[in-house]
């Protein structure tokens, strides 16, 4: 029971994959949980970066809106832009699951997602199942992400805020915080950077 697809895998490694967004300028949120199949499992990724560029190095984006009254007008006046530009996002692999009811494993799957695999956003139910554990923070901590890893961690936890009831979100935030204390070996600056972003 997949939701509406949001993109398609263009590059895949064991630890991360890059997908192209179906809609320009509409990447999933930073830290959002997405998944794509590797033929065997559904590989879970956390969105760690998004970029919108021109895929053709010979035709970089140039300013086009000097005469336009609004940003929308730029795109109306240059309909080709929607084809020339592309929004891509990178997801860090944080686990996988086998079937709808099977448990979510927060460790690396045996194989990366396939190229051209469709990427789907995680349903609230999947997010809830995913956050029964916080082991994924250890995978994130070691990932070479573009954004500061603390930002990414905080963003990932924050997505549960709208899904879980307040007391369960608090419990999750505490558990994640405690895991981070261990992960950062009690470095108060790094821990507090995340804590400040997930609570209240």
């Amino acid at each position, binding site marked *: 029971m997949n939701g509406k697809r949001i993109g398609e895998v263009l590059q895949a490694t064991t630890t991360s994959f890059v997908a192209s967004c179906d809609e320009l300028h509409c990447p999933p949120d930073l830290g959002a949980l997405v998944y794509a199949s590797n033929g065997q499992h559904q590989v879970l990724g956390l969105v760690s970066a998004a970029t919108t560029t021109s895929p053709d190095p010979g035709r970089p984006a140039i300013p086009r809106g000097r005469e336009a009254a609004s940003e929308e007008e730029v795109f109306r006046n240059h309909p080709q832009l929607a084809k020339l530009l592309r929004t891509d996002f990178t997801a860090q692999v944080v686990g996988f699951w086998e079937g709808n009811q099977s448990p979510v494993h927060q460790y690396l799957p045996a194989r990366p997602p396939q190229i051209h695999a469709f990427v789907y956003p995680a349903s609230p139910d999947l997010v809830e199942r995913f956050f029964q554990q916080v082991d994924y923070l250890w995978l994130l901590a070691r990932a070479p992400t573009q954004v500061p890893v603390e930002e990414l961690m905080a963003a990932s936890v924050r997505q549960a805020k709208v899904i879980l009831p307040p007391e369960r979100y608090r419990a999750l935030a505490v558990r994640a*915080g405690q895991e981070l*204390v261990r992960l950062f070996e009690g470095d108060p600056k790094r821990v*507090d950077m995340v804590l400040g972003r997930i609570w209240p």
Partner: protein
Amino acid sequence: MTDQQPLARSRLGVVLGGSLKEGLQVRLDPLVSVEQVAVGRYVIIEGEEKRFFGLISDIQLGALNERGLAALPALDDEFRRQVWTGSGLYGCLTVVPALALDRLDPMTGPQPVKTVPRHFATVLEASEEDVAQVFGSEGENYFAIGTPVEMETKVCLDLARVVERSVGVFGKSGTGKTFLTRLLLVGLVDRARAANLVFDMHNEYGWEGTSEGGPPPRGLKKLFGPRVKIVTLDEANSRRRRVSWDGALTIGYDEIEPEDIALLAETLQLSQPMIDSVYLLSQTYGERWLTALLGAKSEPERRELAQRLGLHQGSLEALTRKLRRLTRFEFLVEEPATKVAEQIVKWLSEGISVVIEFGSYRVLEAYILVANVLTRRIHDHYVTAVERALGDSSQQKPAPLVITIEEAHKFLDPRVAHQTIFGTIAREMRKYNVTLLIVDQRPSQIDEEVLSQIGTRICCLLDNEKDIEAVLAGAPNRGELRHVLARLETKQQALVFGYAVPMPIVIKTRTYDESFYRDLNAARNSFGEISAISRAERERVVQQLTDELRGS
């Protein structure tokens, strides 16, 4: 003892490391606050093959990153506090393992530890049942002296072991030494484990004691009637206090030996040459030396005495002046009229306890003198009796005797311990069934050798470093016990360790009041009577009772 899972044990944490020598490091679970635990509490560690019993000796605050602590925000919101507590910040205990119970062979009972539990062994708060398992329940040979801190279970002393080796009750002034001593004496008399000779300097043990508020605690005589005799040194005082005494003790001049005077050197401010003169006098006049010295009343008599001994007259006069101070004690007489001392020996050998009351003579000179003179006589009697029993199997060894002395450091000071009879008793009288119950506030001033012979030690609060060191000398894990000892409450708490208990434990002293007297009576009725009948008979009675209960 069984291996069944216990009922009311709350989990405290897990073993992280440590050693048998230094104690185990236990990390508290995040939900257990350091404020919930206390030094001196008793814990269970569930090892793989053994269950360990241990004592909390220290509590620390741990941090995953000590250096980063300074950069930590104030944690003034509940969320941050919750995150950090139990992960980056945690409570730590040092636990001294003392006993281990083999799960595979539970019938052997708790044994002294020879190893430590594995890593991450679960640490639980000991339940009442655990404590009862280790410290036994009250019985003919077990006497409850208190309860563990914040528990209701009884902590019992093995009385047979109490009398087998000397016992020390230590603690600074006002910490409850007298109450503990009285309690111990009651136990010994009640369970008829030993005859007691108590040198009761402050008139606390015989008739009734003094108490800060509340009715005066009953003394041994009031509790046990004919099984205890009070002998007074000061009839007028005893009469005033309405004590019913059994004899008045007098000591003759000829019973005082030069050693007794040597012991008084400090209190009477006698110089070494003066002591030497006393020995010289004794060589010349034998046991009548003091009569000879004090009898020389006129100046010519004293000159003649000095000439005869070859001493300087001036120094002899100085000695006379100092020793004349002793004559103010009315119990000291030239010719004792009655033979109370012999009666005391007789009572003791019949198993009857004797309390010597000092009345108004609450001075050290009187105490040291009487205790030494009387004990020497008893010592001689016991040595003869035991040796006779060894040579002739038809003769019985005398019943164990426990001699209670207060201000013990005055008798057992390293400078005099080798000369006094108490030093001898402490060192070797175990063979003759005589042991000491030493009550003192300055254990550091007691001779090391004597201290090492003390089997069971009951320590109330001590704050002098040297005293703590002295009390713990020779005890395993003394580093950890030191923490426990220094943190006892000022009243009603004591650390008990040594021969008569299976492991060190902090107790809250049993209250000594009406309920105690009632318990004592009840206990006496339950096993006092049973002990009179044979084991087979006892089993028959138990069986009968069980059948009756089943039938109803």
